[in-house]
């Protein structure tokens, strides 16, 4: 089982970074659905134009959890514009690659981050 994932993927899965709910989030992005076996929620706290704090919650496989953890690490401290540029491929690459069959769930992490930023921007413009 562990053999199909890189050590870094396993490390993020076993000890995920920035995991948990954020009560007072400025932006929240939820993607996927439980029927497909993968749901991700990313919460952001924005200060100035930067991602000051970020948290995630994930229901899903090893790849889904590990990519969630990695995307929060990549986005933390970045400007919103920089964070919007983090791609699905960046996340997979930073984890040392993912099994091709797992790309569908791995893509969710970047999507959830982007959704959280869009949510923040929408709220801010209201």
């Amino acid at each position, binding site marked *: 089982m562990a053999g199909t994932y890189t050590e870094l993927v396993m490390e993020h899965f076993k000890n995920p970074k920035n995991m948990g709910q954020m009560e007072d989030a400025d932006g929240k992005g939820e993607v996927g659905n439980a029927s497909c076996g993968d749901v991700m929620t990313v919460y952001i706290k924005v200060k100035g134009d930067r991602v000051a704090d970020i948290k995630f919650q994930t229901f899903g496989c090893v790849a889904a959890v590990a990519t969630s953890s990695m995307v929060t690490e990549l986005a933390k401290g970045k400007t919103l514009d920089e964070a919007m540029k983090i791609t699905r491929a960046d996340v997979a690459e930073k984890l040392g690659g993912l099994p091709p069959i797992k790309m569908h*769930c791995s893509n969710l992490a970047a999507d959830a981050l982007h959704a959280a930023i869009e949510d923040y921007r929408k709220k801010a413009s209201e």
Partner: protein
Amino acid sequence: MTRMDVYLDNSATTKVDQKVVEAMLPYFTERFGNPSSIHSKGVEAREAVERAREQVAKLINAKPSEIVFTSGGTESDNLAIIGAAKAANSDESKRNAVVCSNVEHPAVLNTCKDLVASGFSFSEAKVNSEGILKTSEVQSHISKQTAVASVMLANNEIGTIQPVAAVAKLCHEQGALMHTDAVQAVGKIPIDVKKLNVDLLSLASHKFHGPKGVGALFIREGVKIKPIFGGGGHERGLRSGTENVPGIVGLGAAAKIAAEDLSNDIPRMAALRNRLISGLSGLSRAFLNGSRDQRLPNNANMRFLGVEGEALITLLDEEGICASTGSACSSKKLRASHVLLALGLADWEAHGSLRLTLSRFSTKDEIDYALEKIPKAVTTLRRMSPVWAKLERGEKIEDVKDGGHIH
């Protein structure tokens, strides 16, 4: 608790019994003959194959002449279903329909479906929410057109035991043949082909402490099926190809041990399995999948809401526990197993399922270790799960049946 290696995936495959290995070894090196050869090396191999045939026959109360050796469960299922369908279609009855349950192993399900391309009609009889087939449901699928119906004796995921004898009666009333896939049942419950009244029964050695890549098909005396391999006409013309002598010897030895030990193994496995189910049922939102009573003594299949199966299996693997799940997050559109969905579960519920299957080698220490580690792993995953958070807040989880999702 110190780390242990705990194998609870005996429905996937089992450890080969040391006594079986010892029985096999001489047939690789000293007694390597071809059973079809006339010389003494051949005779020696032939005798070994025939002894194994008796051992397998005895385990299921059949005659040795009713046993054909194959390469395993998949081949036995294919030979039974395709062989019976072809035979029925070529005699004057021209029966052209096949039936199976909706919880069959792919070796049966896909074989039946594939026959549609050869002009057969195919229908699936549906189990109830307990995973049990009602005879009234089967009856509506069987007619004078039915060539063969296939209903498994025990399910590989949830361990439910089907009313095979009753289904066989329905088949015979319509002149149809009845096949049962007993791959998971052998070595776990007593099997008597006379009581089951089936025409064809599949078994696989590696599920009861024999080697992989060898199995058998029981074909009731007088039942006509056609071979699926062309070749030299081995196994009474039904399965061409030089016999896998060491494998067959191993299957025979495993069958002999299973027959001798079954009456001790059943209550022991059942007691440990019950301990496992009671322990895990104490977790919140944890449920047993499939009937509690009509079930193999070695199977516990639980679902823990708010958790995804692959993640759970991986955490358990890190703790030394081998188990499996009905959630396969590997295809583009992730679907839970057809067996769990057949019970009427929503996809998201089925994704949190864990299959734990014991063997006669399972111990109380192993079960207690699992009972300590599984709840911890479930809690770890629930702590990061937005689905669990929703359940805790009393919110509804939408079950998106088709499309509408982002990836």
